[in-house]
């Protein structure tokens, strides 16, 4: 049986004017468990708290009920007060007789009656309270960033600059990501590699950053502060420490000339050798051998690169290696790609080499690209005179079969950028943009778009393109609508550029599963709170950076990367994490192992294990729910989903809430 002290606060006249405080004290004094009841002018004041502490000591109180203002106001105060007197802070309940009673009722008798009922409910609850301990878990002071694009790079740099160690895992042979493929960036038109390459070098040289390129996350276990991650370092077939990056192997690889290996980096507009770096400024500047295409790996013959390498860095025998590293926090920055365009046969992307995607256009305009920055048609290498841009290809579609339901956000701006860059270089080009809506929210964005129209005379037409028809003379006939002028347009073009929808990197689903980070219908990672916790995953210790969370441009990505870094730093700065003691708890004897609770847990805090249980003298191995207390945030979704009542929530247990109901309805 608890020994409960009830303390009724006057709050000056805030409570006492409407609630007969003395009467409340009298009426609750004989409630079960109550051994002491008193009132005071200001319970939260120094003197009021002193009164509580004294009573705890004098009456050996095991529980407190404070009838006062909202617990949202002073619950912390009274818990600290209890702790001061050696009482577990979770043995305190607050009956809200100010905000929810004295302030809203006028009739004193009525308000007093209600105050008593609220006090009774709190007393009944405290009778069932148990002391709860805040748990502690240590924090490994190292972060993992998955993905080495601009989002991952920026996050890693910010964390590393704050003095913490960071590892970047990148599945490609070089970091740099999508941004390294771009030519210029909007809205300032600075050269993408001029601003990205220095950051890539900085990452490589930073004492706090370790790079795992050509590597993938294989397995993740643990929880916030204590993740164990297996990283697969794929065999490069080049010894990292010996390679000087001279590039001799790449120039001499026979497949570079005669092979037909499309360069991933150049989007298949150019071929690459079997031993390659994706691009000249790759970081690290160490090539890899593409074993699927390499003649040596296919036939056992060749070996040119090994023979020619001045530093004997080629190692055909190299094996994949798995390293296990501990981390306190993980940032997902897996980025995006554009969708496959097979479903948009009407735009003839697969039929005509002169219908290209925007990323291909980036490569075609890039001085380091397959054409050396000279814009030309892939069919006849002639410079296009009439170029048509089609917006929203696969964005804003209703059905999954067609495309994506969301707006890809970046296309309107980069199309304006492309149009202006082309007009800058080749002013006699005619450019037409078919759009549904031009969306330019962002600093200096609409001005940028208007410049394309007003200064560069880019022809913007509201209306979608129905079909692109390759013509016998090698041109493309674009059949489109002009909705504002009410016309169907049939115009000839030399080149058509498709603004294909972006989508999260397809690998993210697997990674999210490993991390138990939730993901939405479009494979974007979900944030813990759309407004208030936009860079955190609902799973504690997992943070989000860049396109993996949703469509965004480079400035937004960089600011989100910084925000994610701050959250990581805030976590790593702590030696220990206090865990919320109001967590779910599973009664293993009652658990059916049905997984219903795990299905509704937003934090992935519930796992299922086979454990030995003793049930009425019978030893049995059962599949039962286990709550990871470091992850559980105490929402109680599992408790309402549990059919057997095995899952319960400390601090808000089924019995506690039931007893409150009973006390109120008594």
């Amino acid at each position, binding site marked *: 049986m608890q020994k409960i002290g009830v303390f009724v606060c006057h709050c000056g006249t805030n409570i006492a004017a409407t609630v007969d405080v003395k009467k409340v004290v009298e009426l609750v004094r004989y409630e079960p468990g109550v051994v002491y009841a008193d009132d005071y002018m200001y319970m939260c004041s120094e003197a009021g708290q002193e009164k509580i502490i004294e009573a705890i000591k004098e009456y050996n109180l095991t529980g407190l009920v404070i009838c006062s203002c*909202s*617990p*949202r*106001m002073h619950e912390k105060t009274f818990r600290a007060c209890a702790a001061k007197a050696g009482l577990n802070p979770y043995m305190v309940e607050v009956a*809200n007789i*100010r*905000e*929810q*009673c004295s*302030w*809203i*009722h*006028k*009739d004193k008798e*009525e*308000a007093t*009656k*209600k105050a008593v*009922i*609220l006090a009774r*409910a709190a007393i009944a609850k405290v009778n069932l309270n148990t002391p709860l301990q805040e748990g502690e878990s240590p924090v490994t002071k190292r972060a993992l960033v998955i993905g080495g694009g601009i989002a991952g790079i920026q996050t890693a740099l910010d964390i590393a600059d704050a003095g913490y160690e960071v590892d970047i895992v990148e599945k490609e042979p070089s970091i740099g990501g999508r941004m390294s493929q771009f030519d210029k960036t909007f809205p300032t038109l600075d050269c993408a590699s001029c601003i990205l390459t220095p950051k890539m070098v900085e990452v490589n040289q930073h004492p706090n950053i370790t790079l795992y390129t050509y590597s993938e996350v294989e397995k993740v276990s643990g929880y916030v502060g204590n993740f164990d991650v297996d990283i697969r370092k794929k065999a490069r077939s080049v010894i990292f420490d010996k390679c000087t990056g001279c590039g001799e192997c790449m120039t001499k690889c026979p497949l570079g000339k005669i092979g037909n290996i499309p360069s991933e980096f150049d989007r298949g507009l150019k071929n690459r050798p079997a031993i390659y770096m994706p691009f000249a400024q790759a970081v690290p500047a160490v090539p890899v051998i593409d074993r699927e295409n390499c003649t040596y790996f296919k036939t056992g013959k060749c070996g040119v690169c090994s023979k020619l390498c001045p530093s004997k860095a080629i190692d055909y025998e190299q094996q994949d290696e798995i390293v296990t590293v501990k981390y306190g926090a993980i940032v997902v920055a897996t980025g995006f790609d554009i969708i496959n365009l097979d479903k948009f046969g009407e735009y003839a992307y697969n039929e005509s080499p002169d219908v290209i995607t925007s990323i291909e256009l980036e490569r075609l305009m890039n001085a380091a690209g397959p054409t050396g920055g000279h814009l030309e048609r892939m069919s006849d290498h002639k410079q296009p005179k009439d170029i048509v841009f089609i917006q929203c290809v696969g964005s804003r579609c209703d059905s999954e079969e067609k495309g994506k339901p969301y707006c890809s956000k970046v296309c309107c701006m980069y199309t304006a950028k492309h149009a202006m860059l082309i007009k800058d270089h080749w002013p006699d080009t005619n450019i037409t943009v078919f759009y549904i809506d031009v969306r330019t929210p962002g600093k200096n964005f609409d001005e940028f778009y208007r410049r394309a129209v007003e200064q560069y005379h880019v022809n913007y037409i509201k209306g979608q393109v129905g079909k692109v028809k390759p013509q016998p003379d090698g041109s493309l006939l674009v059949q489109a609508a002009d909705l504002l002028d009410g016309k169907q347009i049939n115009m000839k073009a030399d080149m058509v550029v498709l603004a294909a929808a972006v989508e999260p990197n397809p690998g993210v689903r697997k990674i999210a599963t490993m991390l138990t980070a*939730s993901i939405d219908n479009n494979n974007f990672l*979900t944030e*813990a*709170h*759309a*407004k208030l916790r936009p860079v955190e995953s*609902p799973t504690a210790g997992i943070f989000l950076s860049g396109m993996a969370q949703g469509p965004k441009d480079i400035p937004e990505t960089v600011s989100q990367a910084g925000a994610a870094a701050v959250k990581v730093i805030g976590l790593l700065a702590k030696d220990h994490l206090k865990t919320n003691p*109001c967590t779910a708890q599973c009664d293993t004897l009652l658990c059916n192992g049905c997984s219903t609770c795990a299905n*509704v847990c*937003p934090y992935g805090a519930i796992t299922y294990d086979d454990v030995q249980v003793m049930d009425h003298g019978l030893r049995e191995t059962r599949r039962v729910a286990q709550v990871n207390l470091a992850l559980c*945030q*105490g*929402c*109680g*979704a599992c*408790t*309402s*989903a549990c059919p057997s009542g095995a899952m319960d*929530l400390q601090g*808000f247990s*089924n019995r506690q*809430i*039931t007893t*409150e*109901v*009973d006390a*109120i*309805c*008594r």
Partner: protein
Amino acid sequence: MSMNEENKEFRPLIVAFCCNWCSYAGADLAGSSRLSYPADVKIIRVPCSGRVNPMFILRAFERGADGVIICGCHPGDCHYSTGNYYARRRMALLFSMLEYIGVENGRTRVEWCSAAEGAKFSKTMNEFCEKIQSLGENVRLGDLRCKN
């Protein structure tokens, strides 16, 4: 207290489950804005509307409550991301079932109320009390086995 009041006019007993993050705070705001509603409403604080087990609601009715209202964060605003979505389904099914067995519509209600909506909280409670007042005492839900 109850002895000498038995002949007085019917005053309903209403239990309100409020989630800690939005609606309980909304109720506090109603209080600090002095937006009154009848004392018939008694609030039970829960972490999330998703914590409200249908057992609690049935229990309240069985114990003599005349109305039960569940308040949570607006869909999309749940502090725990998704709790209110599960609550929404659970309550829709429960309410429909109660209607099915012949309980008067309106004894149960779900309202999404944010921490900023003190006025809405107060208005909701006033409406709900009025509704329950008009329905009168809860007889049917006291005993779903209907033996008495």
